[in-house]
């Protein structure tokens, strides 16, 4: 159960998020969809507001003071994010992108094209989000290599029996740190170690993990990490790719345009230094300022506190769902809460997830329903869709109780 200290802290911090006061004033509001996108504390909104009111200019271009100020804000966010995930060289190893999806496309096109031939193998898992599947499939159409998949078992854990044989054939391993459907926390540090024994580079999807767990890229041992801001209290429209400097140096540019070049002639171009050679065009500057503020907020609360809170709430939810709904509910993913993050996908007997989410909405309970951009995973589970509740630092046991009450109501509506 949650320690009194942690619970106390959570109660206080919800008031930092304007949306809760705003919406709850008029209707019930239980936000259980942070795995899709999280809410924002006032410090994040203020940082963006302050930027637009006082500091806006284009970055890396003007020599005037305001342009330098904007550049400073943008580059500080880069360094902050680098430190947040334990990068060795924060100012060179973080590439800002639109989101984690773009970061994974950048790896596929930037690194994949350099590394892979028609003879190559790319190893992925069956639990990947479309963002870590389709970029590789697009590249496969261009280069004609083979994609293999690590399967998962009935508890939603990766089956690693053939890992070494698969790694022996592979050049790249793409794996999510945490499944957005099953909640599974994959043993990525171990996978990286084994992958490196076979000279395989590891591309990790950190979209779900990084917002909820202290992240150190050296401990994880991965070579590339895709991150998105809007699942960690920060704005939409910005994400990042972290990769070790020597890997970024090897990668080809993906998007061309201004800023990513050091010279352009009529017969060609010379790419800029890293990380700028991957950042074509004017970047999301205000969003970077917002992300910087979000990182500061998360550090103040403490990632360990957030992980512990997620886990105690997940544990409470698993118990409540099973006790109060019993055989009327099927929960997917690991039963052991130490092997999963704060994401619970489930199926209510004979009620389609879309209908579940609709009835829940009438109770003010916001959950995601659908295939969660993981259709191969859904096919493995043998379902077309699931409903998914996900937790973050501002959720509490009342949110879970409201969820279970609403689920009982949905069940009654479709079974009476």
């Amino acid at each position, binding site marked *: 159960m949650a320690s009194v200290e942690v619970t106390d802290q959570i109660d206080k911090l919800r008031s930092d998020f304007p949306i809760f006061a705003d919406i709850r004033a008029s209707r019930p509001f239980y936000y259980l969809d942070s795995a899709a996108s999280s809410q924002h504390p006032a410090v994040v909104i203020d940082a963006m507001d302050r930027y637009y009111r006082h500091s806006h200019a284009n970055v890396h271009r003007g020599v005037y003071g305001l342009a330098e100020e904007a550049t400073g804000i943008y580059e500080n966010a880069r360094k902050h994010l680098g430190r947040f995930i334990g990068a060795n060289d924060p100012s060179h190893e973080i590439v800002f992108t639109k989101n984690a999806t773009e970061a994974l496309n950048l790896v596929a096109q930037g690194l994949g094209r350099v590394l892979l031939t028609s003879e190559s193998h790319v190893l992925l898992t069956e639990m990947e989000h479309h963002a870590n599947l389709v970029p590789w499939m697009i590249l496969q159409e261009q280069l004609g290599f083979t994609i293999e998949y690590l399967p998962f078992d009935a508890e939603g854990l990766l089956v690693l029996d053939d890992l070494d044989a698969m790694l022996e054939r592979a050049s790249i391993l793409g794996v999510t740190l945490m499944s957005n459907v099953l909640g599974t926390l994959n043993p990525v540090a171990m996978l990286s170690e084994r992958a490196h024994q076979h000279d395989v580079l590891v591309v990790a999807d950190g979209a779900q993990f990084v917002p909820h767990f202290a992240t150190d890229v050296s401990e994880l041992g991965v070579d590339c990490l895709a991150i998105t801001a809007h699942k960690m209290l920060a704005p939409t429209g910005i994400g990042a790719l972290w990769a070790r400097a020597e890997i970024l140096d090897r990668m080809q540019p993906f998007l061309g345009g201004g800023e990513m070049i050091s010279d352009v002639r009529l017969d060609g171009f010379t790419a800029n230094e890293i990380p700028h050679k991957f950042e074509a065009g004017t970047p999301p500057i205000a969003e970077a300022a917002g992300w910087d503020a979000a990182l500061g907020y998360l550090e103040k609360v403490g990632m360990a506190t957030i992980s512990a809170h997620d886990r105690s709430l997940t544990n409470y939810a698993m118990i409540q769902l099973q006790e109060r709904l019993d055989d009327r509910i099927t929960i997917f993913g690991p039963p052991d809460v130490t092997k999963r993050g704060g994401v619970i996908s489930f199926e209510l007997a004979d009620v389609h997830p*879309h*209908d579940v989410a*609709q*009835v829940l909405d009438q109770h003010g309970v916001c959950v995601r329903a*659908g295939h969660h951009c993981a259709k191969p995973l859904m096919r493995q589970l043998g379902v*077309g869709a699931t409903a998914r509740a996900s937790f973050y630092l501002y959720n509490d046991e009342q949110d879970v109780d409201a969820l279970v009450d609403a689920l009982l109501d949905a069940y009654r509506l*479709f079974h009476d």
Partner: protein
Amino acid sequence: MNDLDDLYREIILDHYKNPRNQGVLEGPTVHAQEGFNPLCGDEVTIYAQVEDDVVVDIKITGQGCSISRSSASLMSQAVKGKSIDEVKATVSRFKRMIAVEESEGEPEEVDLRVIGELAALQGVVKFPVRIKCATLPWNTLMIALEDAQAR
């Protein structure tokens, strides 16, 4: 909860729990068409048996939410035995009722006696996200019928 009761009317729940015309058709006059709603993963396959421009039989398989399943079931009843022209008129009336005909901004008053049980799906208008669930089988049927006419 009034809006919700409006969405989940008894007829809807009945057709969801006991869908009509389920199954597969085979034969040279059968036109099969798959439809997907990428948003929620709903899938439907329509088998329309068309002879002399008449939908003589229709069967449906697939998986989906109560709205898409009941819409498919109600549709199968509404179009079976009708000529393609009559089916097109029904589709048009149905779409106008739930305000998805392109030229229409607001849902239109549709003669409920003409539209019959399909009127049960009217409540979907208040839930814009669900309109796609309701129209999926209809759009899929239209493709199957275009295929039938093209041959």
